């Protein structure tokens, strides 16, 4: 009769959480974090925080990238709408990445390890703040803020939608003012998407690390998806040894973030001076220039990307189209026409149509316009596309053809008038 509440819940089918959770080993020794990793205590008014700090020397190379090299962040700043970045000292930039108890978001997810990277007098410093107990979160945030307040910009990877909102939430929950809204924020994920969408199958940091930076990780690495459980097990067992792998993972993320920032800054700042940049990357950079209204830069990088000769056909034509379109918008008709003619060699319908439009509306050269329209019709006939689509295209084209013919006849009868 005296059934426990827990038995009752089980018989009602309540299933929660994990089974066979590890328990602290009563005989076993404690392995607090300070015995596992070299670190120190950072004291705050709300308690002390365990901090691991490593400085990488001035000549340290992460994969292909020198972390402390002189770079020019002007264009990356323009792209990220971080106006002050241009004039900011490189040592005012903070790299930030958090390890959290999950990806779900909301108020139930918290950061237990915050990795921070910055240029220092000795080279590049990675500083990791660890929440050894969730009850000490206030201290963690105070420690974080004492460091963050020394910087003007924060650089993250997916921080716009994840790390920074999460830290903001943690600040609200602990009744703190969050420092991030007044800082400039450069999130490299959207930039990476723009740069490598067509070339790489994944734009995750770990894949960019391999494809772009060429950095190997060691045996110490633990995959991201295991990280929340490792922390939960640590809280249950008080055995911090498996946490070492998480610190390694986080430190590597910070280094790669900084390296990627340097790499992207350079790629945006002087794409034509770098060695071995694939045509696809140049085409992507050219597009970014175009959007940043750097017309002359865009022209030269577009040209270079087409010159490279390594663009797959589809992207080659695509790039010509974009390039020509940019010329069109800038009324550089001659350049646009020559690009469209290049694309037309590949039987590209849109190029025919653009040429027909140009000759009709700009050049008022109706016979040429008709010629391009008819070339387009010819090309449509030969295309392997669904019949209905063919019909629609041909319908438009013959409409244009008819209109042009009418114009010729009017113009013919009215030759003396103009």
């Amino acid at each position, binding site marked *: 009769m005296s059934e426990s509440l*827990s038995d009752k819940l089980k018989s009602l*089918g309540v299933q929660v959480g994990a089974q066979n959770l590890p328990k602290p080993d009563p005989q076993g020794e404690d392995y607090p974090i300070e015995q596992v990793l070299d670190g120190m205590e950072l004291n705050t008014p709300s308690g002390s925080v365990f901090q691991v700090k490593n400085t990488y020397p001035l000549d340290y190379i992460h994969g292909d990238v020198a972390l402390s090299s002189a770079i020019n962040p002007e264009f990356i700043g323009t792209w990220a709408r971080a106006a002050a970045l241009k004039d900011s000292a490189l040592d005012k930039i903070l790299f930030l990445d958090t390890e959290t*108890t999950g990806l779900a978001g*909301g108020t*139930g997810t918290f950061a237990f390890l915050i990795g921070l990277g910055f240029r220092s007098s000795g080279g590049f410093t990675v500083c990791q703040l660890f929440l050894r107990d*969730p*009850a000490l979160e206030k201290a963690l945030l105070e420690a974080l803020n004492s460091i963050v307040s020394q910087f003007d910009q924060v650089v993250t990877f997916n921080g716009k939608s994840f790390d920074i909102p999460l830290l903001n939430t943690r600040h*609200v929950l602990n009744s703190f003012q969050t420092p991030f809204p007044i800082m400039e924020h450069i999130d490299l994920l959207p930039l990476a998407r723009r740069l490598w969408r067509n070339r790489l199958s994944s734009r995750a940091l770990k894949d960019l690390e391999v494809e772009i930076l060429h950095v190997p990780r060691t045996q110490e690495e633990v995959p991201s998806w295991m990280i929340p459980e490792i922390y939960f097990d640590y809280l*249950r067992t008080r055995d911090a040894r498996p946490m070492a792998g998480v610190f390694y993972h986080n430190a590597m993320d910070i280094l790669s973030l900084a390296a990627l920032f340097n790499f992207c800054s350079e790629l945006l700042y002087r794409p034509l001076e770098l060695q071995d940049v694939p045509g696809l990357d140049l085409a992507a950079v050219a597009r970014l220039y175009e959007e940043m209204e750097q017309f002359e830069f865009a022209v030269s990088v577009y040209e270079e990307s087409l010159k490279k000769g390594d663009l797959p056909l589809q992207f080659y034509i695509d790039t010509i189209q974009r390039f020509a379109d940019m010329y069109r918008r800038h009324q550089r008709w001659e350049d646009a026409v020559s690009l469209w003619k290049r694309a037309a060699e590949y039987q590209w319908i849109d190029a025919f149509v653009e040429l027909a439009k140009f000759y009709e509306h700009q050049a008022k050269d109706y016979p040429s316009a008709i010629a391009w329209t008819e070339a387009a019709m010819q090309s449509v006939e030969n295309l392997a596309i669904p019949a209905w689509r063919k019909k629609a295209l041909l319908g438009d084209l013959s409409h244009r053809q008819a209109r042009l013919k009418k114009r010729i006849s009017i113009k013919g009868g009215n030759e003396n008038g103009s």
Partner: protein
Amino acid sequence: MSAKDQLSNVERLLHLWQSQPEVGGNIAFWQKIPPRPANYSDLPADLHPALASALNDSGYRRLYSHQAEAWNVLQSGKNVVVVTGTSSGKTLCYNLSIFDRLLKDHAARALYLFPTKALTQDQLKTIKAISGRFSTSSGMTAVPLVSASIYDGDTPSNQRSSIRASSRLLLTNPDMLHMGILPHHTLWAGLFQSLQFVVIDEIHMYRGIFGSHLANVIRRLKRILKFYGSSPLFVLTSATISNPADFAARLIEEPVELIDHDGSPRGERNYLLYNPPVVDRDLGLRASASSEAVRLARDLLAYNVQTILFARARRTVERILMSLRFQEPFQSENVRGYRSGYLPGERRQIEQRLRSGEAKTVIATNALELGIDIGGMDASVLVGYPGTIASTIQQFGRAGRRLEPALGVLVASGNPLDQYLIQHPEYIFDRSPEGALIDPNNLLILMQHLRCAAFELPFYKGEGFGNVPVDVFQQLLEFLAQNGLIHASGPKYFWMSDQYPADQVSLRSTDQAPVVLLAVDETTASTIGQVDHTSARWMVHPGAIYLHEGRSYLVDDLNLEENQAHLHPVDVDYYTDPQKVVTFEKISEFDHAALPGAQSTYGEILVTTQVKGFKRIRWLTNELLGFETLDLPPTQLRTTACWLALDESTQKALKELGLWRNDPNVYGPNWNHQRNLARQRDHYTCQVCGRPENGVQHQVHHKVPFRTFSSYLEANRLDNLITLCSACHQKVEQNVRIRSGLSGLSYVLHQLAPLFLMCDYGDLGSAADPQSPLADGYPTVVLYDEIPAGIGLSEHIFRIFAEIVRQSLAHVSSCGCKDGCPACVGPGGENGVGGKEESLAILSILSGNRLQDRNQ
């Protein structure tokens, strides 16, 4: 002008109906409620001038008394629940105080919760109609705009952050609050810090599971409000229920003041209870409610009376619509349907045409019951009792524009509850006896919300959660901690999982996903419907014939993991009858009470249901074509129950009564022959006690009673016969009688109980067992919550059992049928024996009446 010319169309039609016996004769009850003048109060003197002038511009120069009363209660800082009629200006009861506060305190904000998205849209219009005038009409640029926005699943994501930041009046629904707002409360810090009012509209919608969930969502909301340091006032509104103040107080777990004096004016109201004529007296069958409703609707259409017809099911809406359009082909355009499943644009168009008067008749589900603005109708026709008194009043309330006479007709169906109400109109027109029930401490529901709450803010030791007893609460936290979902550190419990718990909780059910029915033709597969997970085992087991829209489908397979059943249309002359074995096991007893001749118990039980096989039965002849066994997993329901065990004296009294009732049966021309064959087969020996015949012939018993069969040949088949000595035969017959009496009793109790509980029939389960394991083998009737862990229904039944028994007795006694019908103890109880008399005898004993010897 003669007096007759001044009559309204409604009045003229009522005269006509009275004069026609084929209509007037079916009107079982007619209540005429005289017009009521308005009871006005002045606008409060200290009302913000911008609001006063906006109200003036919108035509509000004074208030109804209940609006003024709500103003006063809220001014005094108390929560309030307003219970007044449809279109009595309920929304101004809260909008007045809220607008005023928002105009005077520029930081103040308010949160509105509506049960449906459609209602939310409608209310936003009402709010904007007034708030839109603050800046324009007052001409005072200093007056801040009171921005109002909806935040629900349909809100585009690019608008969300600005709504979060700046909306001062936030309109949403409980689901969104639960799933999208509370788990992200830091994004709403501005709202929560400045929240001064929470409005919960139409609280009668939050009964049962939905309400139990909502009460927990409110607990979570209040926890978060406490974190941000605010404690807003709650304003609730409700349709007529018996316990609005108690119910409101249970939902928000705070004291609430009740306002239920309606100060709005009203024209004359005529309420009719219409009982379709009996077409088959023996079976107690009446003409269908929908065909009678169509007939009334045609008259209403002919008299140009704008009418809304409420049907219970979407399919009924379509059927009535078709039938009415078919019979009134020239009015097709003026007759519209309205139900969920129609596209929003279509609905808006119908609403607009109703308001403009272009549409004359609309046939709707309860989707139109809530405050969607369609203007006033002239008449409201309810096709069947909508299930609760509150809904009945709401639906009647849809008819009536200001001071015009209006008409409400309830067309009764053959269901017991409908027939009961025909006999007892006072249940509808006097104070409603229904109370809305919720059980926020249902363990399953509570656990779900504790997880959500733990995610939202860490619990600290010694904190509470609503009125959950502290020790229970502590045990639940420990349970979560043991299972690794939360981690105790220092004084707090931290959420420690990468789950987002609100995703796993649906406020509107506790059930698993329904099973989708896929009809597979030669070439195509289409979804024809769905069945809830539990019912699937007996409705769409492999081999079952499933009826849908008049077609038969054979079930090919049932996949309970994928929640799919595959069917294909067939042309067969049989139906299938699943053989369900339901067993009950007692887990614990919470309380006992004595009734005359019986004991009632409230406790916890385990209901195990297994579908072991099914019969194939020929239509028309009811001939058994075959039996097949099935191997389906059993389902278990652990829930609360209330059971009634008849004591020995009752059994004895019934056995004695049973002696008088042995109607000589005429068993057909082959009876003697079959009877002798049976005796021969059974070696002239009683098949129960083994006694051989000794000079006197043994009797031959029909295992399935004779009258169940339409053909004596079937009834007298050898496999339905068994040889018994007279003593054993008597026992067996008695057992059948008590059994059918018990079945009839459980039928009528189950049918009438929802009247007292404000729940649906399907929220309860029932069973009768002459030898119940719940009560040490005594004959027992059990009623239980069809919801894991129960939601308080059986507990309430336990408390008012005597009343339900009394009403059941009155109802069955007054039923005109011969021996049981669907409207009283059911169509021929178990095994087809009517059991009306037996049920009546049990009900009489339970009511404390002495049994009468009917031979006297």
